[in-house]
């Protein structure tokens, strides 16, 4: 074996070790939650209302609440986000106004989630009088996820070669037809990835729903969008810090359910991406 090969070999081993160090903590956290939480998972835990000061029974309303909030977020954020991205990528000229807009979007993506929570409290809960409700929470989460969705979707649209738009126009297509039939389908995997990343964040955050949607203890499914709801991340926060004598099994079980929802959304995103990548032909 030559010297050069030996050095290369050493490099590979080093890089391998570094990546191991990077993933170790993640694996440890996940492993710990699975080991300690798996014992709590059973049919009752997933489908029953909480009982006995939330120490017994299940977390059904928190699971449903989180799914409702994510759904509500999706209904608002997906159309608005894609529309905004199409406007920025395909129609907006490069003016001072659009530059400010882009800068604002990038910065909004970095704003701490509790700020969104306070904003939602002010606008939706108090000013628009939606109260602490699924509606107010969904809208707050939608506003928090929009910057992510818009910027990833805009990037995906810009990655589609400009020639396609030109060809479509030269065949008598309007600008919208070119976008609708050529550009959007090509950009779809990137757009979907952005949507799922955004919704993932919405599913896991506590701060934005703290003042806008979450109920401390509400052992039933909300009857309307104007009612508050329990939700997994907030419930987890409550049973970890606010209720003395909580069995760790229940805490870890709740964390495991939240983690499973989030990771399976991630997996769906990965599957969609690889499916489209195999189909793409340019």
């Amino acid at each position, binding site marked *: 074996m030559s010297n050069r090969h030996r050095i290369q070999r050493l490099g590979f081993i080093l890089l391998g070790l570094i990546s191991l160090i990077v993933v170790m903590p993640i694996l440890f956290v996940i492993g710990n939650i699975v080991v300690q939480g798996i014992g709590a998972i059973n049919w009752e835990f997933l489908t029953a209302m909480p009982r006995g000061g939330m120490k017994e029974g299940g977390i059904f309303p928190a699971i449903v609440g989180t799914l409702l909030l994510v759904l509500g977020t999706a209904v608002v954020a997906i159309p608005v986000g894609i529309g905004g991205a199409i406007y920025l990528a395909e129609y907006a000229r490069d003016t001072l106004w659009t530059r400010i807009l882009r800068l604002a979007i990038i910065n909004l993506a970095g704003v701490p989630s509790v700020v969104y929570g306070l904003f939602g409290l002010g606008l939706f809960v108090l000013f628009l009088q939606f109260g602490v409700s699924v509606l107010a929470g969904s809208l707050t989460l939608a506003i928090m996820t929009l910057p992510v969705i818009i910027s990833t979707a805009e990037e995906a649209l810009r990655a589609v070669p400009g020639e396609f738009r*030109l060809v479509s126009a030269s065949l*008598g297509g309007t600008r919208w037809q070119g976008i609708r039939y050529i550009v959007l389908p090509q950009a779809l995997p990137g757009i979907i990835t952005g949507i799922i990343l955004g919704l993932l964040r919405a599913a896991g955050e506590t701060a934005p729903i703290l003042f806008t949607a979450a109920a401390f203890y509400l052992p039933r499914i909300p009857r309307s969008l104007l009612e508050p709801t329990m939700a997994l991340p907030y419930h987890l926060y409550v049973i970890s810090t606010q209720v003395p004598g909580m069995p760790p099994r229940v805490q870890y079980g709740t964390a495991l359910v939240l983690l499973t929802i989030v990771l399976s959304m991630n997996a769906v995103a990965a599957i969609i991406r690889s499916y489209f990548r195999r189909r793409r032909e340019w």
Partner: protein
Amino acid sequence: MEPKIRFQNVSYFYGDRPALRGVTLDIPPNAITVIFGPAGGGKTTLLRLINRLNDEVEGTRMTGRVLLDGQDIYTPGVDVPLLRRRVGMVFALPLPLPGTVRENILYGPKLAGVRDQARLDEILERSLRLAALWDEVKDRLDDPASRLSGGQQQRLCIARSLAMEPEVLLLDEPTSGLDPISTGKVEEALQELKHQYTIVIVPHSVQQAARVADYAAFFLMGELVECQPGRDLFTTPRDRRTEDYITGRFG
């Protein structure tokens, strides 16, 4: 015969930089008109004025008039998508759209509102035959267009333009990426097509210009130097600059 396309004192600017200067040129129907000259002379710009594809470029300015069948195509109220159906365009690189051979050909007709399946099948076969591609792809109509060879892809692009049943076909260096045999096939196809269409082509070489030209227009730095029937221009050019260029004495 009435010219199909007329340029009347057309100047065109990208920002402040002129790309065309006072071009006056008549393009006859049912013939191949060659637009040739050194790089940056404004050939692509001229072509894209005929189907208004340069509308998509920001910060440009035009003076003068461009007429198609005697109608000014830059007057307000012109239906631009309709104009682009009448004036097809083939680009320098083969640019198949994502999707199959069939989807590529039928993209334009479907946008134009053709729904009848029998009619679509007819358009598909007719345009592929016109572009001399039918025999090579008739068993691969539902394969991705990107799997065709470069030469086949370029004829696919020609067929795709023809599927619109245009009156004019613009080709901007359509064979620049092709080998001599594929180039020959494209040129042959054009010779057939000129009986039905008005063809304007930017060739990729002076040799090709001489081979295909019924009429030839020589452009230099945005100016039309001269336009003559091809056999005259390439044997007895009137202008010294044309002669220098076609004999290869040009810097």
